[in-house]
């Protein structure tokens, strides 16, 4: 198991920013009467600058596990991940401190990114304006609705202008306007060279994706050029599919 990094600024057009090779992951337990679950067996993928990449798959297929390994918050059992540049990670559930206000949340995570107070302030106002949560900057996280909490969850991933965005169903709870704004933002970022990777369940989104990876049977398949829908999206609609 290895992981390597290179510095920001080395990235060039269409450069591979994340490369995963032969990733294997099994969730196990040393306690008796528990079962181990093999999630990934031989997963490979590449993420390049300026691409919007979708990761699709049936429930429990290992999409979030794969993303957590790519981000680096979960260790793979074997295989390698090469990472370049900076990452912004938006987990599926908002991982935020409930008792802090939105402004304090930006300050704390911004200090983690190594941003100055001015940079944090600028990012906070820019994203609050874009995603329409300016009126909630003094609210505590636990006083926000699910949709607004998700906006903060996403904003924390975006605030330092990362080279790679890793988004695990980032629009959960968004209203239609915010959903459209999110896609405008994703397309703007991709046009500026950011690699946007997201776990997606919605079939109609596939036309917006430059590359689609499907996680199935522990492996990752590039299904970008396949006509029609993937097995995963079909099965999520309850249709029979051929394996």
């Amino acid at each position, binding site marked *: 198991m290895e992981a390597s990094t290179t510095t920001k600024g080395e990235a060039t057009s269409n450069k591979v920013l994340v490369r995963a090779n032969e990733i294997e992951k099994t969730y196990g337990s040393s306690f008796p009467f528990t079962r181990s679950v093999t999630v990934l067996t031989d997963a490979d993928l590449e993420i390049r600058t300026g691409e919007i990449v979708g990761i699709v798959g049936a429930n429990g297929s290992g999409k979030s596990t794969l993303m957590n*390994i790519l981000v680096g918050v979960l260790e793979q059992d074997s295989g390698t991940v090469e990472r370049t540049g900076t990452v912004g*990670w938006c987990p599926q559930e908002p*991982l935020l401190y409930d008792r802090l206000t939105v402004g304090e949340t930006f300050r*704390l995570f911004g*200090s983690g*990114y190594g941003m100055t107070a001015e940079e944090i302030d600028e990012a906070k106002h820019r994203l609050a304006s874009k995603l329409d949560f300016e009126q909630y900057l003094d609210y505590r996280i636990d006083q926000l609705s699910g949709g607004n909490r998700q906006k903060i969850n996403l904003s924390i991933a975006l605030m330092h202008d990362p080279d790679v965005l890793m988004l695990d169903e980032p629009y959960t709870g968004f209203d239609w306007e915010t959903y459209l704004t999110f896609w405008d933002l994703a397309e703007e970022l991709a046009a500026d060279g950011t690699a946007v990777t997201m776990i997606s369940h919605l079939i109609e989104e596939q036309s917006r994706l430059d590359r689609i990876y499907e996680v199935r049977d522990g492996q990752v398949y590039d299904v970008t050029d396949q006509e029609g829908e993937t097995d995963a999206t079909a099965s999520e609609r309850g249709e029979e599919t051929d394996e």
Partner: protein
Amino acid sequence: MNRVWTGIRANVSTFLRTPLNVVLALLLPIVVIEGWGQAMAGLPSMPTVEAIPIELGRLLGAIFGVAIIAGLMGLAQMISARAADRRLVQTGYPPRTLLATRLAALGGVTVVVAAVNYGVLWLTISPGAPVLTFVFLVLAGLVYAFLGALVGALLPRLFEGSLVVVFLAMMDAFLSGDSPLAADVPEFVEYFPLYHPKELLQEAMFQGTYTTGDLGFVAGYLLVLLVLVTAVFGVTMRTSGGWSA
């Protein structure tokens, strides 16, 4: 932006914005100190048991009150923040700095809790060495704050963690506390977290002095707990491979 100051402020704000914490910190000392004192003083009504003075009972109540509150605060601060901590560390916030800010905030809270307990105690007993008495109450609180943090780093859920901390603190205060109901306790009780803080506090309270050996033991206890909590927290916050900043 200064990570340490931002982290300490965030941790203190989190504590103050949890109303149960504030209520516990302010009200529990009164209940525990007076309750423990009266319970100890009431023992002569039982056959073959000789009561300890009410002052000693109150002192034991104070040390238990500080320990239980600080322990639960340490536990809650670690468990409630665990998932968000992992995300914060992923952004580049160093785990040791994060732990240091949390323990610093916890230390501040412990001083306040000890001050409240000392104040309640002072209303009924005049300490021989007031400053030492206060300092040793703080030390007792710090031992349990670190212990709570360690349990919080090890156990994933608040319910199980609370059971461990509460049960441990009650057993500890009971067996370390010269209770006539716990006569002939085994020698290993000396290694319980509150044994030496209680010895220090009792001596400072009633004789105005302290024993260096007890103080050294408490300092060693704190150091060991600090090393353990740092190691466990480091393991739970480990990320595989970084990204360039």
